[in-house]
């Protein structure tokens, strides 16, 4: 009888430990859960942007963006206003971890391939870089970073994301994840010297077509004192997008 009791207790211990171990997620698994919770297969969004300078001056812009995350990542963004940038379009095609980026400027009337160094520059004067847009636009960013868990509590995970893509110039990112809904609630961007450069705060979350979506995202540049606020105004998820939209031909239309 005593032997059976010891065997039973041992089995219970082994089962409990294995359950506990399997419940402990890795940083990458947390990112994967966020991806499932926030990243649609395809998306079409209309965005309104407010750009604030350090002295409080305001400029407004609006743009539309198509994205297809099935297979190779494809994204097309086009500015709708104001007149200075209207019609300016970007196409990004990710093939086998090689990204081809094209820019169409109406004044030039031609499509030009742009270098990958432009991905770390400002996205048309905003506080977002091309790479940062992946974080709010449902891009497949989890493959560009190596994630480890810094803190875990009842409400959230805090992750440290170190870029694995050499095209990303940040030293690392700190990302706060809502544990219940599996979406980010804050991201801090640290520059190459390890100093805090920018803070992204997504808010006004709503579940649309099964995906948690922030209606408002604020990117604050701590070093420059400027900020950009993006409002999602029209959102369509998982509706088939014609593949022709992600071509250089469509870029100039």
């Amino acid at each position: 009888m005593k032997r059976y009791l010891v065997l039973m207790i041992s089995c219970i211990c082994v089962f409990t430990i294995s359950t506990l171990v399997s419940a402990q997620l890795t940083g990458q698994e947390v990112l994967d859960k966020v991806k499932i919770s926030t990243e649609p297969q395809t998306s079409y969004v209309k965005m309104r942007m407010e750009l604030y300078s350090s002295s409080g001056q305001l400029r407004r812009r609006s743009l539309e963006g198509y994205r297809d995350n099935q297979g190779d990542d494809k994204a097309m963004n086009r500015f709708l206003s104001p007149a200075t940038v209207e019609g300016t379009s970007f196409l990004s095609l990710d093939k086998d971890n090689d990204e081809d980026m094209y820019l169409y400027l109406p004044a030039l009337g031609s499509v030009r391939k742009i270098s990958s160094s432009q991905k770390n520059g400002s996205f048309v004067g905003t506080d977002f870089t091309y790479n940062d847009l992946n974080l709010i636009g449902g891009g497949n960013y989890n493959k560009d970073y190596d994630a480890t868990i810094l803190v875990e509590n009842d409400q959230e995970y805090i992750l440290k994301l170190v870029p694995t893509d050499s095209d990303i110039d940040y030293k690392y990112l700190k990302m706060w994840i809502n544990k219940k809904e599996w979406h980010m609630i804050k991201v801090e961007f640290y520059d190459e010297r390890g100093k805090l450069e920018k803070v992204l705060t997504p808010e006004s979350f709503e579940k649309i077509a099964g995906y948690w979506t922030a209606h408002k995202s604020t990117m604050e540049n701590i070093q420059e004192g400027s900020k950009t606020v993006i409002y999602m105004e029209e959102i369509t998820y998982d509706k088939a997008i014609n593949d022709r939209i992600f071509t250089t031909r469509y870029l100039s239309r």
Partner: protein
Amino acid sequence: MIDIKFLILIACLLLIFTSTALANQLEISGSLKSDLIVSTDDGKLTDQEKINLVLEKGFGFDAEMYVDLGFREDYNNKSATDINQIYLDYYTNKMDWRIGKQIINWGSSYKLQPTDYFNPIDQTALKPLDEKIGVKAVKGIYYAPNDLEITGVVVPSFKAGKLSTVIPNLIAVEDDLKNIQEGFKVTKRSFRGFDLSLSGYHGFDQNPINNKMNFIYPKLNKIGFDLIGDIGEIGVWTELTYALYQDEELDNGLNTTLGVDYKWSNDLYLVIQAYYQQGRSSSEADKKMLNFHFDKPVFTFHQIESNVIYEFESETCVLEPQFNYSLASSIELQIGGTYINSSNEDALITATFGQNRVYTRLNIEF
């Protein structure tokens, strides 16, 4: 100053097009540029106003009409109206057609583009290399599988550039069927991270040359190659053409560029480009140039930029600094200058860039 007739004309056009736009969903956009230029050589002050009105009308998903009208008035109250571009776009399943007066931008290089065969530049403009003149043409692009594009262009009549100085005994090219220009380009996109193009052209040299006491636009054939992509994070491009002149007294020759660009995370953008063109005759020297450009946003909405071109043969340096001050959305005040330092006043590059000057330009886009 803009005279009253000119203003009434603009007001009437806007009124007509606005009401038409409401009825037919015609898109209207454009710009107003007001320049104040001071020649630092003789202290002469000139002003110039330029209005561009762009009208666009879509016909379903298959066709679009585009009209770019230009109204210009200079310091002598001389006004001119131009149709910069007017064309019809027609889209089929595999082909895009463009018929009418248009700008055909070929080439990946920065401003100096050897494979940009068709459109001449306006040397009288404040920024000559940015002001291309439209040509009447038919252009067709066939989109083949595997990211392949085949473009064909036919330009029935030759259009010469607007020259900043009068060239004596310059013989114009006749409007004749035998002077028709043709070009083709085959482009392969995303080939191991590069876009490659092979092109051909039959027509005339845009730069006149001295030939037996007369200046002529020599007839030629060109073959060209164009490549753009990146190595690491640095953008690289090269363009190359070989010109075959029909006049046996002229020397066939090479024209090439090689350039790189890079954008730092603080948004400083830098371009460095080398340019080479073989002399077209024994009396014409080879042209070797270096071209630098940088731009950087300052205080979020404003920008500083500068172009520098150095021509080795005539030891000419052209410096074009500019500060763009954003007054509001789509309203910008540009303050800049052109400084030319040359040991040879007759150098072609001096004629292209005009004179030493400082200027302000108020640019309103709508």
